[in-house]
C-alpha cells in the first residue's frame, strides 16, 4: 500500500492523534479512539490555491494543477467517512468544486471500526454506527486475533487486490465476531439525541428566546466549526506581491461576525445568538431541506473541545422539549 499510495493514518504526537502521512506502519497509533481533528483537511485544505496570477498592464492567469496523487486515508472512523459523503454533496451539484473533487476521486478510505467509542460519541443517533462500512471503500474491524475486512467499492477492491497474500476468506464465525464487536461498541455509546421531527421543530422555534439562552455562554471562538467534520464554509482571499499573486481559498467560520459583515457596515447576523442559531439550523434544518441529510455525524468533537461546554446533544434535546 505504501508503495502505491500516499498513506495518511492516525499518528500520536504530543498528546493528540492526528492524520499524518506515514512512511512506515510503525508510526500508526491504532489505540486511538478518534483523531483530535477530523481528516477533512486532507480533502478540504485549510489553504487551497485556486489559481495564480501575474500583474501588470495585462493580467495573466496561471492555473494550478489539480493533485492526482493516489491517497489512502487509513484508520478513518465511520463518522468521519460519513462526513465526507455529506461534503461530496456540497461540492458536487450544479457547480462542481474541482479542488475537493479531484482529491476525493483519488482517495481511498480504509476505515477502522470503533471498538471503544468516546464519552461524547453519538453516531448511533444519526443512522450511523461505530462499525458501519457504508461510507468506506474498505473497513477493518479488530475481532481479536484478526481483522475482519469488508470491501465496499471498486477503489477498495483495487487496493485489496494488492494485499491478497495477507487475507483469507471470512468464515461465518468471523462475521459473527464482527457483529459482536459492533454490538459491544454500540452498547458502550451512552449519549443520544432525537432528530426525529427536528426539521419541523426548528421551523417552529426560530424566534424562540431559547436561542438567546443557548448562545449566552458561547464565546464565539469557532473551535466547533474548526473541528467539525462537516463544516466546510470558506473564504476566498488574494495574496499578492507587486507583480504576482494567488487567489486562495481558506477555511472560515460562521461563528465570527466578519463572516457576514457587509461593506456598508450592516451585518445580518450581528449577535452571537444569530450565529449560534444559524449553525444549529444549518446542520439540522437547512442541510436536511437542501440535501436531504443531517450535517452532524455524532463525532462529539465540538462537545469535547468547547471551552464553555456548549453541548450539541444537549442543545438538540432541549430544543425538542421547547413548547412552541
Amino acid at each position, binding site marked *: 500500500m505504501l508503495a502505491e499510495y500516499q498513506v495518511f493514518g492516525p499518528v500520536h504526537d504530543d498528546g493528540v492523534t492526528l492524520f499524518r502521512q506515514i512512511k512506515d506502519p510503525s508510526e500508526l497509533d491504532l489505540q486511538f479512539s478518534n483523531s483530535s481533528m477530523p481528516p477533512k483537511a486532507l480533502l478540504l485544505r485549510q489553504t487551497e490555491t485556486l489559481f495564480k496570477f501575474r500583474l501588470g498592464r495585462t493580467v495573466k492567469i496561471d492555473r494550478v494543477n489539480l493533485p492526482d496523487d493516489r491517497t489512502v486515508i487509513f484508520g478513518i472512523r465511520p463518522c468521519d467517512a460519513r462526513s465526507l459523503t455529506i461534503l461530496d454533496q456540497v461540492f458536487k451539484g450544479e457547480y462542481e468544486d474541482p479542488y475537493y473533487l479531484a482529491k476525493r476521486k483519488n482517495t481511498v478510505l480504509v476505515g477502522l471500526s470503533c471498538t471503544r467509542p468516546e464519552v461524547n460519541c453519538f453516531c448511533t443517533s444519526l443512522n450511523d454506527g461505530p462499525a458501519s462500512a457504508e461510507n468506506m471503500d474498505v473497513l477493518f474491524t479488530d475481532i481479536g486475533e484478526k481483522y475482519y475486512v469488508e470491501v465496499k467499492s471498486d477503489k477498495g477492491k483495487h487496493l485489496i487486490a494488492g494485499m491478497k497474500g495477507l487475507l483469507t476468506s471470512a468464515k461465518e464465525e468471523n462475521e459473527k465476531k464482527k457483529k459482536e464487536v459492533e454490538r459491544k461498541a454500540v452498547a458502550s455509546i451512552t449519549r443520544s439525541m432525537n432528530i426525529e421531527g427536528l426539521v419541523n421543530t426548528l421551523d417552529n422555534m426560530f424566534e424562540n428566546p431559547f436561542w438567546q439562552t443557548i448562545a449566552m455562554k458561547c464565546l464565539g471562538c469557532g473551535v466547533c466549526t474548526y473541528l467539525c467534520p462537516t463544516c466546510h464554509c470558506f473564504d476566498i482571499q488574494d495574496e499578492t506581491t507587486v507583480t504576482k499573486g494567488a487567489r486562495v481559498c481558506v477555511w472560515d467560520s460562521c461563528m465570527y461576525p466578519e463572516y457576514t459583515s457587509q461593506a456598508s457596515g450592516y451585518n*445580518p447576523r450581528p449577535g452571537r445568538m444569530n450565529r449560534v442559531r444559524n449553525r444549529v439550523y444549518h446542520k439540522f434544518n437547512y442541510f436536511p431541506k437542501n440535501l436531504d441529510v443531517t450535517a452532524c455525524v455524532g463525532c462529539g468533537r465540538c462537545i469535547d473541545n468547547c471551552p464553555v461546554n456548549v453541548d450539541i446533544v444537549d442543545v438538540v434535546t432541549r430544543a425538542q422539549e421547547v413548547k412552541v
Partner: protein
Amino acid sequence: MNNNPYLPWLATIEEIRVEVTGDRPVKTFKLAFQDEKLQKDFSYLPGQCVMVSLFGVGECFFAISSSPTQKGYVEVSVIKLGKVTSALHECELGDVLGVRGPYGNTFDVDGWRGKNIVFIGGGIGQAPLRSLINYVVNNRKKYGKLDVIYGARASQDLCFKKELSELEKREDVNVHLSIDVGENGWKKFVGFVPDNLLRVKPSPKNTVAVTCGPPIMIEFVIHNLLKLGFTEEQIFTTLEMRMKCGIGKCGRCNIGNLYVCKDGPVFSYKQLKNIQGER
C-alpha cells in the same frame, strides 16, 4: 463555460461613467471580455449577477446593471464602500479585471409579458432595476404601463441621471423621482421612496412591483404595496449578502436554507415571507 467555477475570465474596462460624486460615489464600469467569442456568447437576464475580481485585491458580487439587449459587454454600477469597491473606483480605462458568472436567478421577464410593471428603487438599489428597465423599454411593446419610482438621499445621489431624464421624455414610461430632504431648485417629490409610492398609487391590477434598495426601504415599500392592494405574489425584490464563492458553497449568504447567490437574488415577497432567517 470553463469547468472550474472559480476561474474568472479577463475583461477590460472600456468605459467608466461617474454616476454620483461626493462621500458615497458611484461609478458604472463597462466591461468587455477579452475573449471575442465570449463577448458574443455571454448571455444573461436582468437580475443576474457577476463576480468581479481585482487581481490582488479580491472579488465582489455585483448585480449586472446593463441590459442583455445591449450586446457585447456587461456593466456593473458600484458604490465605493469596502476594500474591493474602493480599489475598483481607482481603476482606469483599459485596466483588466476578472469576471465570472452570470450567477443567480432572474426577473421573470417572460412571465411578466403583457403586465404593467412598477419599479421602486432607492439609491444604489437602482442598479439591478436599471437592467430590467432597459430590457423592458427595449421590448416596450411586450409590456403594459411602466412606472419608475426612484429616490435617493439627495439629488446628486441619484444614479443614472442621464438615462432617467431620457426616460422622462418618453411618453410610454412614467418616472417619479424623489429625494429625502428638500433642496433649492428641486421641484419633484420630497420624502422617502415608500411615501412617493403611496402618492403615485399604482393600481395592482395586472401589475407586478419590483423593488430594490436599502433593507429598511424595501420593508416599508412592501408594507405600502400591500396597503395598495398588491398581493404577495405580485411583489418582487432582489437581495444582497456578503458573498465569496457565488455558487452556493462558501456558506455565508444564506437566508434560512436559501442561498442568495444561487437561489436568489430575486425573491417574491410570498417566498421571502415564508423563509425564516436574517437578512
